[in-house]
């Protein structure tokens, strides 16, 4: 146990979704936490610490999982971590308001040879439902510290600290004697037979009985793991026993729940039955009203996101105004012009981009984190399950897709409420298709300029193409991301509605936002610097820049897709910011301003005089190609950053980016050539 040697005890938090695990993690560690990936995985790893009585306690937030089976990467990471012995104590969280189901995790844990404590979390909600638990009696049965708990209430954490210290001191394992008795009743005595063949001491922190149960459940990963410890004969015998077992998980699950029922039979009291579905829930899950209600609430949520976001975004908007005073100060000390330009353009704009992005991400996380926290998102998932399943998504995905009509950054950030990584990546890949608000600042202007009264038809065409695009993209990414066996239909609990825990919610969102900000700054800084160098010229005129030369050089190629070199550069710039499409056209056609400031500083307005120049320089087919290319291009640099943040994978972010680059070119090609036949 390396952790004990360094004198920093490690506590691992284990719990099903909705058990309040993140609340406890944030409550314990506050800002003293690091977010990274589990080695070689795309699963987020959160680690932090707290200090108490001169001792530092490391806290590891294990990925959310329903059990310790091998049904998902999260579950495998979780159990491998516990088995590795890196944790000194595992803190198992159960939802006291749904105790008889929630203790399944404890039953699945029993047999792991690592000291544990059991937190009966959400005790306040259980009590309000007239439920009570005799923790002392339960503790006698289980042998490990049992703590009735409210993770959202930091003032009452002393009981937790005390239990951890006791567990570290006494190192007691979950008493599973009566659970084992249950396992012995599984038909044909397979449990006993397997125990005889398995090494007595188990493997790592897995006890022999835990291994036997997983084998009965058909857990292939465990079979592979123990293969090397077995003689060939024993291995063959085990295989023949396993081939005789049908529906193993059902038998062991029955035993585990029987054990839970026995545990609770004289320790748990439920006074009154509450109504199972509240009036609001009848509406929220209604076959006709459920969906419109969900869309309405999401739209209201989108609007509400701007309330906390607006002041932050406003403050961000002030940053570029620092440019002049800084320039003056620098020229006073006669600093080189290039340095002044760099600070003015790259540094200030990076800050401006990052702050504006973070304002919106903060708002979206707060509002939709709130809807998730009180339990409403599960209802959205329920009513939209069938619709979203057609795209291979789970019901909750409707939220990021709707939010993306406002802003793709928010859409990507909103996928946080989706618990599976693959589902999250697929949802983001589809959210990029949805035309965001900035698109509507550009497309109608260009459409009416070139197509007059026919402009609405272009808008309709965009929606049609978006629909087809989504179906194709869902197939392309779905086939890579989600294995067929993972396409199981919805199995989900609808958690009871909670009152929001504002403090805990704000705490977790502040920590998250800070994490995103620091990453976003890096990405935006690098990309801005590269783009700045490409668009830099000492005189500031566009025709001396690398980007300009590049654009001119490849015009023979871009014209195949229907681009002039000007529209192609504007299209490239629209990947950084959609509004840049018009700004860059203005710079290139009118020669006004620098390419860089046209890209990052443009509000999406048409420069004076641009429309007449565009009408004489572009044909309707090239205009149409440009409209489609910009609409279906990567949304903006901040959406790309946000995608990287939520997928936690550079590979997948680049894949999505490359896919959109390619498909938007194809769409431009099609639009150009089809339009050429008409006009």
């Amino acid at each position: 146990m390396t952790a004990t040697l360094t004198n920093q005890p490690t506590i691992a938090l284990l719990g099903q979704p909705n058990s309040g695990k993140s609340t406890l993690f944030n409550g314990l560690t506050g800002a003293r936490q690091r977010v990274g990936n589990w080695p070689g995985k795309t699963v987020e790893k959160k680690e932090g610490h707290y200090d108490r009585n001169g001792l530092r306690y490391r806290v590891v937030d294990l990925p959310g999982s329903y059990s310790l089976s091998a049904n998902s990467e999260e579950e495998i990471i979780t159990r491998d971590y516990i088995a590795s012995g890196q944790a000194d104590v595992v803190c198992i969280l159960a939802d006291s308001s749904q105790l008889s189901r929630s203790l399944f995790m404890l039953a699945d844990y029993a047999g792991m040879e690592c000291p544990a404590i059991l937190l009966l979390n959400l005790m306040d909600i259980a009590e309000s439902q007239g439920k009570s638990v005799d923790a002392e009696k339960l503790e006698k049965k289980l042998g490990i510290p049992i703590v009735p708990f409210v993770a959202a209430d930091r003032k009452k954490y002393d009981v937790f600290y005390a239990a951890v210290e006791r567990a570290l001191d006494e190192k007691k394992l979950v008493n599973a004697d009566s659970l084992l008795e249950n396992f012995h009743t599984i038909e044909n005595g397979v449990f006993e037979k397997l125990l005889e063949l398995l090494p007595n001491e188990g493997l790592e922190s897995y006890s022999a009985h835990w291994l036997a149960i997983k084998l009965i459940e058909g857990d292939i990963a465990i079979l592979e793991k123990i293969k090397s410890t077995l003689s060939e004969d024993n291995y063959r015998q085990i295989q023949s026993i396993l081939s005789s077992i049908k529906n193993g998980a059902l038998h062991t699950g029955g035993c585990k729940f029987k054990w839970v029922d026995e545990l609770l039979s004289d320790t748990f009291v439920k006074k009154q039955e509450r109504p199972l579905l509240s009036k609001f829930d009848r509406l929220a899950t209604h076959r006709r009203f459920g969906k419109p209600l969900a869309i309405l609430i999401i739209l209201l949520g989108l609007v509400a996101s701007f309330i906390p976001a607006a002041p932050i975004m406003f403050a961000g908007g002030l940053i570029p105004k620092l440019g002049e005073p800084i320039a003056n100060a620098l020229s006073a000390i006669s600093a080189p012009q290039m340095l002044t330009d760099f600070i003015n353009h790259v540094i200030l704009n990076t800050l401006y981009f990052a702050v504006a992005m973070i304002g919106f991400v903060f708002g979206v996380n707060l509002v939709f984190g709130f809807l998730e926290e009180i339990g409403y998102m599960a209802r959205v998932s329920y009513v939209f399950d069938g619709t979203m399943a057609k795209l291979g998504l789970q019901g909750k995905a409707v939220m990021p897709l709707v939010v993306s009509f406002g802003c793709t950054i928010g859409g990507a950030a909103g996928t946080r409420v989706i618990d599976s990584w693959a589902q999250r990546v697929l949802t983001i890949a589809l959210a990029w298709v949805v035309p965001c608000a900035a698109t509507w600042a550009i497309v109608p202007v260009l459409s009416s300029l070139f197509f007059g009264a026919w402009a609405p038809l272009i808008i309709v065409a965009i929606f049609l193409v978006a629909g087809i695009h989504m179906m194709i993209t869902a197939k392309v990414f779905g086939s890579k991301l989600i294995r067929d066996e993972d396409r199981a239909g919805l199995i989900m609990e609808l958690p009871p509605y909670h009152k929001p825990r504002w403090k805990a919610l704000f705490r977790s969102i502040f920590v998250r936002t800070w994490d995103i900000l620091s990453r976003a700054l890096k990405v935006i800084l690098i990309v801005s610097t590269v783009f700045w160098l490409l668009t830099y010229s000492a005189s500031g005129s566009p025709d001396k820049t690398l980007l300009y030369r590049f654009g001119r050089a490849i015009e023979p190629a871009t014209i195949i897709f229907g681009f002039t070199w000007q529209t192609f550069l504007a299209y490239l710039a629209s990947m950084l910011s959609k509004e840049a499409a018009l700004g860059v056209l203005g710079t290139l056609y009118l020669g006004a301003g620098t390419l860089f400031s046209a890209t990052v500083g443009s509000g999406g307005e048409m420069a004076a005089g641009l429309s007449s120049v565009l009408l004489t320089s572009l044909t309707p087919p090239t205009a149409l190609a440009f409209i489609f290319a910009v609409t279906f291009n990567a949304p903006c640099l901040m959406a790309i950053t946000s995608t990287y943040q939520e997928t936690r994978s550079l590979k997948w972010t680049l894949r999505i980016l490359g896919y959109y680059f390619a498909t938007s070119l194809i769409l431009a090609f099609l639009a150009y050539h089809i339009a050429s036949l008409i006009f």
Partner: protein
Amino acid sequence: MIELSKIKAGQKVVVSEVKGDNRFLSRITSIGLTIGCEIKMLYNEKKLPLLFYGRDTVVALNRKESENVLVEVIA
């Protein structure tokens, strides 16, 4: 025995058989549905997943999967 998807809202049933691969069985047991467990149907409308109550929990289950859950009506 009758498929869970055919149970009307308000009926109480006991689960008597669950079919499916290991993955499905392990997932459905982790949410509390095992043989012999008592559940009450809350909502069963076309095109929407089923909603039922068992082990202190309101559970939503896809219609297709619910055809693999066989039950006996008790009330």
